[in-house]
């Protein structure tokens, strides 16, 4: 199933150390892959020195990316998202997180709902289930309870998770089901072409509210905290390294991990959550020192830092749902 030839270079970014040779292109010796890649392209780029220089730069970049070895987590399918969409960045971070956690492809299950984010599992080289609008959480819950050995991700957009599926979030959080939930929050319904969602700011003009959104938006971080999520974080689609770190931390967290990603909808939101606005406003959370285990400061940050990224809250001690069931069973 590996469509991107991988090599056997163990870059410094690989955390755990199992042998990846099984995943490698058998014809490629460690360290030789950049050479062949460069060689091929160099043949086609002849004459013009500037072209050669550019080709050399691209080749170098391609070689670097390949050396990072994370594209193996991408499926052969080309994403259907609009050019410039923030979701590309999210997926980049997702692939890298999987790579660095060294997850076996067949043990990853990505469960999604409906909307632009719903297509996500198609683009992951793993097991994937594109379910119903708002229902990624129930399906992911059943899957995780059936198969604790799997690494289960649930993906949903703001309309999906907070609108139609909003009733499931409190319960997956309070039960502390051990799944990682990634909220692709672009504050708009994109696939249906630009209607207000649960996170569209008050008075924003949208196709469903041309004279301005009359609804007060939800604050997803505050909700996640109030519902009792044991891991709450926010990332930004323009910060792949930051998102990667959050997805890794969320995946390693034993219990329900809630990760909101601020991302623009480049097609249907020209005024509110644009790349420009996000770039100007997004910053690191700074209310936490030394550890984010303080609910009060997390709530304050959720209120006061709408663009703050990082981990708001994490309760590492709280047992997951399945841990609790085991405790109860053993206690009998």
């Amino acid at each position, binding site marked *: *199933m590996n469509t991107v030839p991988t090599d056997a270079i163990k870059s410094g970014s690989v955390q755990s150390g199992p042998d990846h040779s099984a995943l490698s292109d058998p014809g490629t010796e460690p360290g030789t892959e950049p050479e062949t890649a460069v060689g091929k392209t160099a043949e086609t780029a002849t004459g013009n020195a500037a072209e050669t220089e550019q080709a050399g730069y691209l080749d170098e970049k391609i070689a670097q990316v390949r050396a990072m070895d994370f594209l193996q987590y991408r499926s052969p399918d080309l994403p259907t998202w609009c050019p410039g969409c923030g979701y590309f960045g999210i997926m980049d971070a997702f692939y890298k997180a999987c790579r660095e956690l060294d997850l076996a492809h067949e043990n990853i299950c990505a469960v999604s709902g409906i909307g632009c984010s719903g297509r996500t599992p198609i683009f992951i080289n793993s097991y994937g289930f*594109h379910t*119903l609008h708002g229902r990624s959480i*129930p399906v992911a819950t*059943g899957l995780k*309870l*059936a*198969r604790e050995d*799997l690494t289960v991700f649930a993906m949903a957009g703001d309309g999906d998770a907070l609108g139609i599926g909003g009733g499931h979030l409190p319960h997956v959080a309070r039960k502390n089901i051990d799944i990682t939930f990634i909220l692709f929050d672009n504050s708009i319904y994109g696939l249906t072409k630009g209607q207000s969602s649960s996170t569209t700011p008050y008075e924003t003009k949208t196709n469903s509210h041309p004279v301005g959104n009359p609804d007060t938006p939800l604050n997803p971080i505050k909700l996640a905290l109030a519902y009792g999520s044991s891991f709450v974080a926010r990332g930004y689609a323009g910060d792949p390294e930051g998102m990667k770190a959050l997805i890794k931390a969320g995946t390693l967290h034993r219990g329900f991990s809630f990760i909101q990603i601020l991302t623009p909808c480049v097609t249907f939101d020209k005024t509110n959550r644009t790349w420009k606005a996000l770039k100007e406003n997004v910053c690191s959370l700074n209310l936490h020192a030394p550890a984010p285990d303080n609910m009060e400061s997390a709530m304050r940050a959720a209120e006061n830092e709408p663009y703050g990224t990082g981990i708001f809250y994490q309760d590492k001690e709280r047992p997951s749902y399945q841990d609790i069931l085991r405790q109860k069973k053993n206690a009998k």
Partner: protein
Amino acid sequence: MKTIDKDISIVIEICGSAGEGTISAGEILSRFMSAQGFEIMSFDAYPAEIRGFGKCVAHTRVSANPIYSPGKLADVLIALNDNHAISQLSALKKGGILIYDSQPPKPHEEDQSVVARADAVTISYGVPLTMLAQKAAGNARGRNMVALGALTALFHLDRDAFTNSIKDRYGKKKQIVIDSNVNSFLEGFDWTKENIDKADTISFQGVTPPQSKAEQKGEKLIINGNQLVAKAALDADLKFYAGYPITPATKIMEILSKELPKHGGTLLQTEDEISAIGAVIGAGYGGIRAMTGTSGPGFALMTEFTGLSVMAEMPAVIIDSQRGGPSTGIPTKTEQSDFNAAMFGGTGDCPRVVLAPTDTTSCYDATVLALYLAEKYQTLVVILLDFFLSNSIRNIDTPKKPAPKMLNANIAPDAADLAGYQRYKITDSGISPRTIPGTPGGMYFATGLEHDANGRPNYTDKGHLAMTAKRFRKHASVLAEAPAPMISGTQEMVDIGVISWGSSAGAAHEAVVTAAGEGISAAAFSSMMLSPFPEKQVTAFAGRCKKILIPELNYTGQFADFVTKIIKRPVERLNFITGRPMAAEDIVEKMREMI
């Protein structure tokens, strides 16, 4: 009154107010009769409210021979509460027996006592229920036991064995509770022996059921449909149950919450029925057997996920124990009005399997079959129970455990399939070999979108047609291994053929026997498998019936509409929405009209 012989078959009703011990008295009576070797069928009618002034009726049919329906009218009515019992007199046979409290705590207004309202041919026995209970235990709570004592004395039942049944029922309670109940029973027994002149002919003296079940003792289960569904699910390797409380299905969840963890499974109480079926589909996707149970209102919520189960080809089993509808309807009354919702509910061309057990024992078979079919055919299976099947109690032989082939039904891809694995491969049977997550080389993407053999979204006309046809081909494969329809009565050409389903089937088969006794030539047909339906068999059956009658517990005849289309001829309908189970007597009456 009929002569009492070895064919004894009587119906006893105990009527009281919620909280008066009506249901417990019925339960003890049933257990005692079962222990004596009789067939029993019992059910309770009670209000939705937990306690208060609602009317409760514990209905028990006792017979030396197999029972197919609960019996419409009672031979005996025990009135613990005159107000409620007055309205129950209409369910007492002409010349039936009434046992009432002759010294109620507050004297009744003239014409407000049950004995004053009973007609002249009723045989009435006044027993001072309250007074004797006071005497036995210092309070009136044991009136139900006094009444059972009176019944035991009147019908020459085994007093000591009955005492043991009471002790068994309260065995885990404090000694004082056991003593109070036993003493009340004995007071009632002694007083009746002493003071009542027997005017009826019912006697169990010397009655031995045809096949003595003494040696089978211990193998007999006294059980209702909900309990049997839970037992079957555990026997059939259920590993996950998700549910949301709703009458009359809640009990299944409560039993499994105790039992599933012991069997290595998980129970999840969800925030709503949408989440319950979603989790079941998620667990089925993960490769374990999963099920949920609900009633009409919850089934309505689950409908969006039923389409996903069929489209993404994920196993899911839903039990819908029907109650009065539509909407919140009548939570504690039985009805068969979810037929259309189960068969056709939802959007798109959506082939699913629907099973409807026809009696308590077949609740077991249906559950085992449902889990098998869902897993093998990667599809939705709905089991239609109803309030009556869920709650009525039978004593049955312990069902045989499922054969090994029923327990491991997933068709996994072989090595050849895995090379260029296609999760939704087009096949003749409609079944595409299925990997479960964690299988290297078997990764796939599942979706509720129309898709190609690889699971990738595909909206072409050819693709949609090929996939829809593939999903529908499962029906033919399922039908090939469906249990045979039950056909009773003569095999010849008959005047009336009765086609029935679900809990009404027992009454239909019994009616055919009764009608034959009256010289009406008749036969009955019922099928546990509703979708896919055995169309050939039903058409052949209809071909030898001059007239067709379809009795069911809904207003319009949902099943009759369905069958009419298949057999392409008009049918007579018999519809009730009284909230009571189908009665053989009513079917027989309709048959007499049709002749």
